[in-house]
């Protein structure tokens, strides 16, 4: 087992790659009573066209299958896995994102027992036509729940506006029609292709003894057999750089319009230190333009164009990236116009002032130091960073070194009129 020290942060990370290819990371945290374990595969909703482990031809599977598979992992021949976790006092959960699927639990006692449950249930698939069909009603209701959430619709509508072909524009849960096509055989194909240990990371953080834990994990893994796994081949259609739709809207039963401005990234083929630096730079640039200390914020706040729902964010994964700035607003068009005006200033004026950038860097460093109190944050973020060959604990030193030029350069990748889109959710005309 290797150890990696982060002196400034007073943390030691333990790492070992097992013979079956599984990467295991263990981070002991003093003073905590709980342990949080995540078991994550680099497989998400965007992985819809790929070469299956036993096949030679590319196949395209029904939309929403990664999420469907996540649901179905919990059901076994002899019942529901939640039952076992509950018996040993563990809160278990799972989630599917665009790029990964994570299974996790936290518990204060019986950590080894719960780790065993986690490893075993994720590595022992059990799918039948009957259980698959039963799940369609449950996931159908999950899809309906999201369909009724205007905040979700405006977020997703903006993403749909931005992308022509990239599957990030497809809802993670799919649609009621697409999930209806899913069969047990599909699930096995996806499972066998993407749940090989070499495509997965196990991360353990909290009240844990690293030597005892790694011994336990190795023992568990050595009892299981896995085929040699070839490199996974995924296929993505070419995605034009510019947005697909400039502006669209939909109507819902809401009291106030909701609006998002999306800025599609021209550059998303990054990984490692380069990606870390790029991502942090764009985030700092966004904060400088749209943060609560900005002139923009003061203006839209004082003119009543925003409320407490106002937010902005930058997301980047291998193959796609975008910034979003949005709010509920009585005048969504005016808000969008001012956002774009502010964005376009970057090309004409010197908006990233050294003093403001230094202040925001300090804020960002403070954010990471606070976040390291949260073992949930560490576990979830660490794995995301890892899958992109970045290291979460490098964030603070990287921020310290960022310059105004770094921020200008990175921000340039989301500039340009062709990258800009607006999506609105408008109230229905007839109100009760």
């Amino acid at each position, binding site marked *: 087992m290797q150890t990696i020290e982060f002196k400034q*942060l007073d943390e030691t990370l333990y790492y070992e790659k097992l013979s079956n290819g599984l990467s295991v990371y263990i981070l002991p945290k*003093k*003073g*905590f*009573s*709980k342990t949080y374990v995540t078991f994550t595969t680099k497989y998400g909703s965007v992985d819809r066209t790929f070469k299956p482990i036993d096949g030679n031809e590319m196949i395209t599977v029904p939309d929403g299958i990664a999420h469907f598979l996540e649901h179905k992992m919990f059901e076994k021949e002899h019942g*529901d896995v*939640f*039952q076992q976790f*509950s*018996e*040993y*006092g563990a809160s*278990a959960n799972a989630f599917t994102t665009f790029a990964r699927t994570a299974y996790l639990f*936290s*518990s*204060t*006692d019986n950590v080894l027992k719960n780790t065993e449950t986690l490893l075993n249930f994720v590595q022992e698939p059990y799918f039948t036509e009957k259980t698959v069909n039963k*799940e369609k*009603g*449950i*996931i*159908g*209701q999950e899809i*309906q*729940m999201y*369909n*009724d*959430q*205007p905040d979700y619709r405006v977020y997703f509508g903006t993403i749909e506006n931005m992308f022509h072909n990239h599957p990030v524009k497809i809802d993670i849960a799919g649609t009621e029609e697409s999930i209806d096509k899913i069969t047990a055989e599909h699930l096995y194909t996806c499972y066998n292709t993407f749940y090989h240990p070499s495509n997965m990371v196990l991360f353990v953080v*909290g009240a844990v003894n690293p030597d005892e834990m790694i011994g336990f994990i190795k023992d568990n893994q050595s009892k299981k057999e896995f085929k040699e796994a070839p490199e996974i081949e995924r296929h993505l259609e070419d995605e034009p750089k510019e947005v697909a739709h400039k502006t669209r809207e939909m109507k*819902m*039963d*809401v*009291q*106030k319009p909701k609006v998002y401005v999306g800025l599609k990234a021209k550059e998303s083929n990054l990984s490692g230190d380069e990606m870390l630096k790029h991502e942090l730079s764009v985030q700092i640039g966004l904060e400088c333009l749209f943060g*609560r*200390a900005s*002139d923009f*914020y*003061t203006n839209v*706040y*004082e003119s*009543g164009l925003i*409320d407490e*729902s106002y937010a902005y964010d930058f997301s980047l994964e291998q193959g796609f990236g975008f910034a979003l700035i949005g709010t*509920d607003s009585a005048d969504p068009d005016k808000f969008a116009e001012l956002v774009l005006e502010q964005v376009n200033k970057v090309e004409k004026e010197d908006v990233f002032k050294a003093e403001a950038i230094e*202040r925001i860097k*300090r*804020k*960002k*460093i*403070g*954010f990471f*130091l*606070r976040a*390291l*109190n949260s*073992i949930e944050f560490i576990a979830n973020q660490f794995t995301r960073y890892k899958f992109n060959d970045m290291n979460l604990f490098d964030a603070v030193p990287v921020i310290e070194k960022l310059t105004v030029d770094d921020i200008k350069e990175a921000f340039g990748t989301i500039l340009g009129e062709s990258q800009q889109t607006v999506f609105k959710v408008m109230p*229905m005309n007839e109100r009760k």
Partner: protein
Amino acid sequence: MFSTIEIAKGVSLHIRQSTQFKTVNFSIKWRKPLTVKDAAERSVLSNVMQHSNGKFKKSAEFRSYLDDLYGTVMYFDASKRANDHTVVLNVETVNDQYLADNKVLDDVIDLIQTAIFNPNFENDQFVSSIVEREKEMVIQRIQSIFDDKTRYAHQRLTQIIRPNHPASISANGSIDEVKNITPESLTKAYHSMINEDKIDIYVLGDVDEKAIQEKLVNALTFKDREPIPYPDYPESKAEKEYTNEKQDMNQGKLHMGYSTPVKFGDDDYPKMQIFNGVFGGYAHSKIFMNVRERESLAYYASSSYSSHYGLVYVVSGIEPANEKKAIDVIEEQLDAMKNGEISDLEMNQTKAMLGNQLKEALDSARGQIDIFDQYKDLGEEFSIDTWKERWKNVTKEDLQEMASQLKLEAVYFLSGKESGQDANN
């Protein structure tokens, strides 16, 4: 856990030194009996105090200064618990020792003092333009509940099951009461909060207990105060047994409200905690296992115990046509518990989960403060072992008794305008 001293009559300071966190956390809580008018005023007040103060008169200046203090988080918030309205000032700052700069903590304490005692006044009153803007923010916060159908349905159920009662009074008051606020009335509410509220001050982090106590006693010069009597809340009961409302939406939101005579702090309180866990509190519970896993009726289906008001809420998102079936399945689960159909496994799972939840909550600074703050009202030293012992003693017969005392008072169903038909779009 925390060591407590009274720094003025009605003002307590609770400090806990701990190396567990990389930050220092402060939480200052002002409490007053809950009424709609006070809730509205104090909600706007917390927004106005969050916006600016006498030293940083523009919001952007205030935010910039917080950024400079390594992104110190500082916010005022309004909430309620039982019959109290609470304004809280939460502050979290990085621990100096992880930085080259070691003056941050003193600067933060100065800023807390400024934010509380040096408001942004013009002619001894809050600035009218800021008050008007923040009134609008709070009004929009209240209105935005309509757009979140689950929260809206929950709010409607509480209004129906306990009208004009703390259980249904919002921590933000009401739109009408917010509209009535003037800079003058808000300034009055400010002085009343600072000088008359019951106050609890919490500090948690790797701090020198004596030194921080001295600094805070000097910085936070609150005067003595007397307890404020509670108003006579009228007896409140459900105004309607069944309500169906329509909006343009796909899913049906089923919200059921039950009452129980058992409240937080009663002898039977631990029994009700276990009851709720078995009924619908967890993924192993009867409601989850039957509504979702057996019948595939829903993605979410659960119960929650609102212990301060003696209410149990059951919520589920379903296909509108399945309304009756879902209600029947939920009621069957309660009947099963009344009949004693409760397994050892369900009991053990629930006890394990409750213990784990409480221990986990103590792993966050905010969790430690909130748990200590809530349980101190019981007048005993809080310990996890005490609660584990209480849960251990709960039997199936106890749960049968709890189930028998539960009374379904109101069902609220929010669904699409063409209920039961295909509403895809």
